[in-house]
């Protein structure tokens, strides 16, 4: 009995090492020897935007939940603006989309100007029986030599 309890304690303590994105390091594709001032390889950025698009179409944040940066600026709805950690950003979006069923989404603009990539698109959803549309804006930034989502706005 005593050994069982100790084993339980060890395993729960091991699980209690909370996975912080910044602690374990981003799992994004990192660049080798990034040069300042030079725009990144397009495919990396496009891949992230593609994940976001697929995720929103499938109504699932899991597709891109690992792509958030340490600090994410989010505007969800009118006058609700804030800065959240990566974990919070995922939860806020999960919460938001749990109340809405997306019927369609596509990024209409993807831009990499001035080394600050962003994409925007419009989605349609049903919320409590009411059909609504909203615009999504996502921008990326560099963090530890990889690209992460730094801004996610829905308005």
């Amino acid at each position, binding site marked *: *009995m005593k050994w069982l309890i100790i084993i339980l304690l060890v395993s729960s303590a091991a699980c209690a090492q909370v996975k912080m994105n910044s602690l374990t390091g981003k799992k994004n594709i990192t660049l080798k020897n990034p040069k*300042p001032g030079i725009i990144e390889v397009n495919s990396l950025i496009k891949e992230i935007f593609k994940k976001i698009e697929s995720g929103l179409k499938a109504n699932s944040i899991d597709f891109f*939940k690992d792509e958030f940066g340490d600090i994410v600026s989010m505007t969800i709805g009118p006058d609700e603006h804030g*800065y959240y950690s990566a974990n919070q950003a995922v939860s806020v979006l999960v919460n938001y989309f749990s109340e809405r069923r997306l019927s369609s989404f596509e990024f209409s603009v993807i831009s990499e100007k*001035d080394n600050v990539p962003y994409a925007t698109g419009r989605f349609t959803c049903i919320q*409590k029986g009411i*059909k609504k549309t909203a615009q999504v804006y996502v921008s990326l930034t560099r963090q530890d030599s990889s690209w992460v989502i730094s*801004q996610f*706005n829905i308005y």
Partner: protein
Amino acid sequence: MRNPAERNIRPALWGFFICLAIAGILHVIGIFVPSYIRDRWDAEFNARKSQNEQIIRGAFQDRVDQLKEILDNISADTSLVAKMRSSDFPDALTAFKKLKTYKLNADQTVDIVDSSGNPHAWNGPSVTNRYADILNKNSKEVFTQVSQHGLRTYITVGRCIVPYEYYLLVSEPLELNSPISNRFVRRTSLSDDLSQNLKVKVAMRMPGAAQDSQGELVVPILNEENNEIVRFVLEEKTAESEIDSYTETVSTLTGIIIALCSIFAAYAGIIWISYKRKIWLTFSVSFVLLWALRIIWRAVDFPGAIINGRLFNPKIYSSQFAYGLTSSLGELILSISTIAVTAWLFFSYFVLTDRKKTIINKPASLTKRIYAVLLTGMIGLLLLWMFRGFSEALRSFVFDSTIRFINPSEILLDVESTLMLANVLLLGGSLLLISTALIREARNTLFLSFDISAFSIRVFYISALLLCIPLFIWIDKTPQSQYFSILLFIIFSVVFAELLYYWKKMSIADASMKWRMAVIILLGAFFIGAPMMHQKLQQREQRETEAAAKELLRPSDNWLSFIVLDGIRTAAESVRSEYASIDIPEAGKTNLAFVLWTKTLLGKEGYNSALVLYDIEGGEADRFVVGMSNPEQKEILTHVFEGEENAVHFIGRTGRKKLGKLYGAWIALRDKNEKFIGSLALLLSEQQRNSIYTQELEPLRQFADRFESSMVREIAFHEYKNDVLEFSTGIKLNPDNYLSPDISSELLKTASPVLWKDIKINDNRTRTVFVGSMELPGKIVSISLEKLDIRWELFNYLKEFFVCLGILAAAGIYLSIRKRRQTNTLFFGFKGKLFLGFACITLLPLAFLSYYNRQLVSEQVQEQAESALYRELYQLQERIGIYVVDEEDFIQGVNNDFCEALAGEYGADFSIYRDASVHASSLSELYRAGFLDERLNGDAFAASVLGDMNYFLTKEKIGSVEYVVGYSPIIINGTNVGVLAVPTLNREKQMEAELAKRNAYVFGIYAIVFGIALIGGGLLALRFADPIRQLTIAAKDVSEGNLAVRIDTHSNDEIGILAGSFNEMVERLKKSREELSKHERESAWKEMAKQIAHEIRNPLTPIKLSIQHLRQAFKDKAADREEILQRVTQTVIEQIEALSRIASEFSSFARIPESKYERLNIDELLAETINLFREVKEISFIHTPSSPPAFIIADRDQLRGVFINIFRNAIQAIKKTGTITAASCLEKHLCIIRISDTGPGIPEELRTKIFEPNFSTKTEGMGLGLAIARRVIEDLGGTITCLSEKGMGTTFEIRLPAGQ
């Protein structure tokens, strides 16, 4: 006898099955609902339509009724209305005062207007500037009207109080005309409320608006004259959306029922297991049930689905740990509470429960010793590993939350901070409980394995734990906490473990020990957890400051660029599709610039921005501006028109001390035929002021809320180019013109160009970050955070400590109530009551003083602010007086440009009213847009225009922001030509900062004084209570028979006298007892001697007679003398044997036998005894053994003797036939044996005597059997009682402590 476990479980099981059944029914309903709804949708839809109509009409009518109630109340005011009816309009000032007495909410308005629509008195914001339009449309005495004015649509209820002369109107806003929801405008919308209620989109439209779309339901609202005044349009609801609604409701209900189900199941499980009395099983099952309950609640989203407020909003806190068990603050609280209960179970199992009764004393083998050492090492590492997890959890609490833990303006923590701190304390406490239990386990194992002293054991295991620290630090590559915290944690755990030993050794009462444990655990959790949390807050601030600095380094912000670009395209598209018919040069008349602005995101969010319309020639046609000064607009517009169309341009800085970029873009406007009709420019300022009325520099909007304590310390931004200071926002923190070479060279050496330094700027201590730009070499941005002195830190810790004290107080109350229920005594003894008394006596006056001081400070600060406002009003009046010499000057010369120029000079916005309407203002665009009311506040009008007050202050609101406005009449040549209005929002912040400082400094002193008073009170309570405690212990000893106890006291006060009296009393008691004892012994011996003499005489008599008879027979030479000899011999032998028996029994009674204790199965012993008497005829025996088997610790022979005695008495009592029943059972910690017979029973008067020695109703025997039985049972710590009724038989009940 019904099993008590069954009794208690049954209601829980009922609850479980009922809930399960309901959940099943709901699930089935959920399956059939979609098809049911689809089949009946047509009929349902029609029914729903009429229901919706009723609801909409009802909601509108409710609004009307509320306004009519106010109308009726005012109309009934005879002093106002009667005068008006008698054509004697009361003094206007009186009318204003009267109207003010009627309670309205912030949006409601009461107006008294004449037949031309001119207001004579009012209370509230203006509804329209054309009241005549409202009156003209209605001819009834009481009427209802809906009108649009500016931003809003209003509902007005009116009554004609003097025919053709005066009307009373009560109004409130129904709807916002533009989709704005920002800091200027509070959103009120009846259609939004109806949409929520009816779960279908509802829009409000005026009659004659654009054609309704097909598939919409229109609900017209008619007034008293049956004219349509407004209509509501509902989007058609589909069956699928209805199904979605129902499915969601059913799903939520099912979740709640399942959660209730799980509660019943857990309760039943815990009750069932508690009766098993196997501690390890209780612990394991409780653990499993607890966590199963938690997981089920999470799975069904309980109670988040019901509560759904900020507690369960991930924006407050959220982590991805443990599959959603910490997905919000509410879930985190539940999970940590579960951890705390688990830790308590663990602690109870390992520490509080006596699992082993005997310790086997034999030398341990080498293997066991090695195992003991390894176990100690492993436990040490395990503790540090768990502590690391605790540190990571704290990191998550801080980094994954938006909670502002440090709010200098409040004395107490807010709700969210309090809850998070409680989480820290609970988690820390759980960690300490588990670590203490593990340390005890290590200690016990070492103690069993090594034959050395307790002190050596202590030294050994403490050294082992401390050695684990450097080992763990060497292993851990990503340390989460400071070494000091780790050391503190180990020290606390060791101290707590040792204290537990000490308390057990001192036999501290259970309740008192629990209280001491609670205090130590909570204090330990606080002193370990609070500093760690502060450290994490510092780390968070560091991270965010770095992010802010990196933002500043970026050439432009892509989001702001995007919304400007998006804005001009949206505005251009609106012009093309909706407003092409409007002539651009005439745009000013329709406020087109404002209307287009509201359609962009800048307008929806309320950003400081401007929209300018130009005609074909390039002349300005209309402009709407909010929060941008003229110079700023000019600067960016020049830049914008030099650049290309449909592209965003920006300027790096907006002013000498102002931080932030300006963005702008322009686009050509075309109609549907692509004909060029003009152009449009959209401007945005990155610097966002929280209010329109402040010129104060604020951090960027992006990070405005991110810095803790920004109210009471300066945060300055600096920019360097090639080590030369180019720009700084610092006032106190204005650095040198050149960057220190050490810093720039250190920055170059770092891998990522970020460097933190503690530096002094103008003798102010700061923590400054320097960030170099990767794209622009030579450019460095730095942010300096002023360091606050120690008093602020203390203030924060004190606030947190109060939370700790609050939890302790709650624990104390709980323990007190529990003890009172169990023992009917209060939890706190004399010492505790003394201490509490001292605390209350100290706290109450301090609290009163603190409150009074705070009020005083608040009043002083308020007075200072008002004085400053008065000064400003005076100065502005003086300046206006310089420029304006007569009324004509005032009317012509005082315009918006004049006001803007003066406002720029004084750094404060203001407005000027003439005849109750705004005449000119430095914020004219806000009046035009409808953000500010063009009509002068009613109170201000009454005071400044009608009354003779030189200054008047009132509180007003814009959006959700409250502020104070000062009014003063403008007198020119003795004539009141207008009213000057100056708002004071910026001073609100100063007042808050001042209050915060006072709170921190004074509160800290109060807390220190209170702490000293508590410590002093505690020491005094100890000193006063000690003699009482000694008296209590001594009295208890005396009651247990120890008369040797004496109290030492040297004081001469009442306590000393009491102690002396006590000692005398005990001395006298001792002497009395000795005398009594002697007397009793003598009596007992006399009695025994009598008894012995009596018993011995009995057999001696027949012996004497027999021998006499024998002598005579031989003397007479009787023929049967041989027979006589045999008879006599037999008789003598029998009587000698009787004598021998008497001697044995007396010897047995007097002697204390040597007992051999062993673990006995009661039922086996009963069965043995029954077998001895099986041969007795006509008596049957029934034996009901105990389930589970009952064991006791006793001497087998003695206990058998007791049973034999009782059985023999029973057999003797049953005259002919009968039954003897023997039953045993276990009840809590007692073994109960009942032996019953069907004899005649024992009369009541004899029942009390049967256990006395020498009492017997039989002719044979000494009457000692039951006396011996009672002695044996009492020696075993049990009781024996006799239950009997004449004619009903007798039952002997024996209760003995059960042995495991």
